[in-house]
């Protein structure tokens, strides 16, 4: 075992030298691409492809090489493989959505140290903003849900979506400030409960604002919501360029998936850029000071309220943008998508990846989404197959057929989130990829304890 570990360590150090990082990265990407191309339904192949992002991130290489390879992987390889099996594109889209949410929450919880449990409220603001203006809801207002006449016109053309993407950012940031203002004075644990309350308030409002004026269409949700138009030449161009590789003509619906994936990617890149710059800017250092010791931060002359509100506003704005994007992509919003469980799901992504660590949070989002959509669902499928078979558990003589049909692992997300939170807090509170600042602190603590020994 120790021998194996030695080899592994040797491999890890050697692979970072010379041209090996380039070879390893390209080999990983190529392997993933080939695997997914040959067997589009295999989970293993998909995971190989997705993890190639991480070898791209970790292996030491020229940054220009990383950029070009990354762009090729994200903009060419994944869309082409994605339209061959739309489910994977959906997973990657969900990963990007949740990564954006987790990055936003990371600013509030990880950077500023304010535990917010109602984060999806901001997501809901963005989603309902485009949900209202991008659908017929304006004309549905006088009618109770389900009673509106058919053939109502749309309020705005679909292309105003891009304008509303910006407006959603502003609206969510304003909501963040509004929610943040009254709770500024509260200490951490109270803040958590109050924001949880705000999250529930927004959900209940979305559920019940179908009267006196029908704003949200109640529990049924708003549908259809428009998408921005996809010009015909894009479709023709895509088919002309990649039709041969894909193997079948791509229809507009699939290409819409590609478009939303690319939009989500652009938002993520902007968010990462903003977050990275904020982290080491004056604001980021002020947040760190507040997080570590509020009293000391006040003494140093940091404007606490302003900084905390900024964390709220910036964190919320990311969620607002993603909300609008998801509303357009799904063409549907309903209060159900904004439950407390979603907030905790995002929190568990942040905790799993590492508070305050940008690559960590993205890894956390990817892991949780894949666990949720692939592993749990695969397990569900396996169980239902077992249920239909004649198999029997040998020792206790239990026939799989008698297993309750209610037992569907895909529905046990709470178990997943809860386990992640508890285990991470007990065994690795700094997350899978600890933030640089925390890493420094960890090293310091270790050397201190060595001195004591």
């Amino acid at each position, binding site marked *: 075992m120790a021998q194996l570990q030695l080899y592994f360590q040797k491999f890890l150090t050697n692979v970072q030298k010379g041209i090996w990082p380039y070879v390893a990265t390209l080999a990983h990407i190529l392997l993933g691409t080939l695997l997914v191309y040959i067997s589009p339904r295999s989970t293993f192949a998909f995971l190989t492809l997705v993890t190639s992002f991480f070898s791209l991130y970790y292996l030491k290489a020229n940054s220009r090489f990383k950029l070009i390879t990354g762009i090729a992987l994200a903009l060419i390889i994944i869309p082409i493989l994605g339209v061959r099996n739309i489910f994977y594109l959906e997973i990657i889209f969900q990963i990007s959505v949740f990564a954006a949410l987790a990055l936003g929450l990371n600013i509030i919880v990880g950077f500023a140290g304010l535990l917010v*449990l109602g984060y999806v409220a901001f997501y809901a603001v963005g989603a309902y903003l485009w949900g209202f203006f991008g659908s017929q809801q304006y004309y549905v207002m006088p009618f109770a849900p389900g009673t509106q006449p058919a053939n109502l016109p749309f309020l705005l053309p679909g292309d105003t979506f891009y304008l509303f993407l910006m407006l959603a950012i502003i609206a969510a940031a304003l909501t963040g400030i509004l929610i943040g203002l009254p709770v500024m*004075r*509260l200490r951490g644990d109270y803040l958590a409960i109050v924001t949880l309350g705000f999250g529930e308030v927004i959900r209940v409002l979305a559920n019940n604002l179908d009267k006196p004026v029908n704003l949200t269409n109640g529990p049924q949700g708003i549908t259809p919501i428009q998408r921005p138009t996809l010009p015909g030449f894009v479709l023709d161009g895509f088919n002309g360029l990649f039709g041969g590789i894909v193997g079948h003509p791509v229809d507009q619906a699939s290409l819409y998936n590609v478009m939303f994936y690319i939009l989500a990617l652009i938002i993520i890149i902007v968010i990462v850029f903003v977050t990275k710059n904020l982290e080491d800017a004056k604001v980021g250092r002020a947040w760190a000071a507040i997080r570590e010791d509020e009293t000391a931060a006040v003494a140093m002359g940091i404007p606490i309220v302003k900084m905390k509100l900024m964390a709220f506003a910036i964190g919320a704005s990311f969620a607002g943008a993603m909300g609008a994007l998801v509303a357009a992509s799904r063409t549907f919003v309903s209060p159900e998508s904004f439950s407390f469980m979603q907030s905790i799901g995002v929190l568990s992504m942040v905790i799993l990846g590492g508070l305050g660590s940008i690559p960590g949070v993205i890894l956390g989002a990817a892991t949780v989404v894949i666990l949720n959509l692939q592993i749990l669902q695969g397990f569900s499928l396996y169980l239902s197959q077992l249920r239909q078979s004649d198999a029997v558990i040998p020792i206790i003589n239990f026939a799989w057929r008698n297993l309750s049909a209610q037992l569907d692992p895909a529905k046990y997300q*709470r*178990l997943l989130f809860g386990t992640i939170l508890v285990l991470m807090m007990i065994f690795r509170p700094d997350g899978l990829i600890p933030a640089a600042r925390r890493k420094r602190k960890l090293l310091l603590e270790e050397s201190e304890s060595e001195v004591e020994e």
Partner: protein
Amino acid sequence: MKRFFKSINVRELLLPLGQLIVFSLGSAVVLSAIVLILALALDKTTVGLAVMERFNASLFTYTLINLPQVLIDGLTIGFVYAAVALGYTMVYGVLEFINFAHSEIFAVGAFVGVEILIALETAGVLSRVSLGMAFVILILAILAGMVAAGALAVTVERVAYRPLRGAPRLVPLISAIGVSFLLQDLIRLVEGLTTGQFNRIFPTFGNFDQRLVFGEVGLGATTITMGISIKSIIVIVGAVLMLVALNYLVNATKVGKAIRAVAQDRPTASLMGINVNRIISLTFLVGGLLGGAAGVLYALKFTRIDPFVGFFPGLKAFTAAVMGGIGNLTGALLGGIVLGMLETFAGSYMGVFTMGVAGTEYKDIFAFTILILVLIFRPQGLMGENVSQKA
């Protein structure tokens, strides 16, 4: 025997009873007055006219006639909240930590009690018991719920909170949220594997569903019966007994003294020879026992339970604890009663006063609004000292 009675601190037994009565009466009088004044003010407006059209009675009489029932319902749910709030407040007093999983401990208590009763029902026992036996069985079910919830609370503390003692404040809180989620799905998993369904119904037996009717009052074309169901009485009596017992335990026994000492200053308490870990476990045990009993009582009152049954009562009980001043036992009683009353009042009258624009559906967020207002204007709560700003 004589010595035993002498050793009982009568003052500590009577004091919480007195407080309960004062709080109940006080909040009842204040809220009734507010509602009646509002009704009088709105009587001549469109609101009053709408009520007149529907019930053929003025808004004021409508409000007045419904008042006794609202008060009884509010009191019942208020006592349940108070019992759950005590669990939060006990733990907070000792550890300064919000035990987020307390709502699931409440739910586990409810499930254990209800499952035992359902098992007895399918065995055919419940249908032929006498009235006295029915009460004995109910008490046994409550005790079983208490034991299960208490054991669970202690286990959770041992596994998920104790390793994190001394970590930054948010760490145990996040762990507690995780435990809460984990337990919700564990209940679902166990129920799914054993019974195949998640919603359980409290079986009907004994005379708990009966209503003692005081009288009928005519309201325009309809008549409204005023009464209190036996189960409401059971809930109130059970909750009062628990609250008094807890108050006695904390304020008049040696163990209670140790609990208070640990709450005040942990290191010094341990220097005085108090086993701090044991006292903390005991605090969780007591909180869990109360939560479990409250769970079974809740199931008795509202009949239907599901694995997420604890979420809203838990949050409201927490609100109640904060409202009364968290860490303060009397405050939790007051907060529970006031919140239960406020919520029932809002649920019953808001719909009428706003002409159906905002009704019972906003009942659940009503508690949050109160929580937010309390935290903004009086963060130390109604009865708490000013500690909540301590960083």
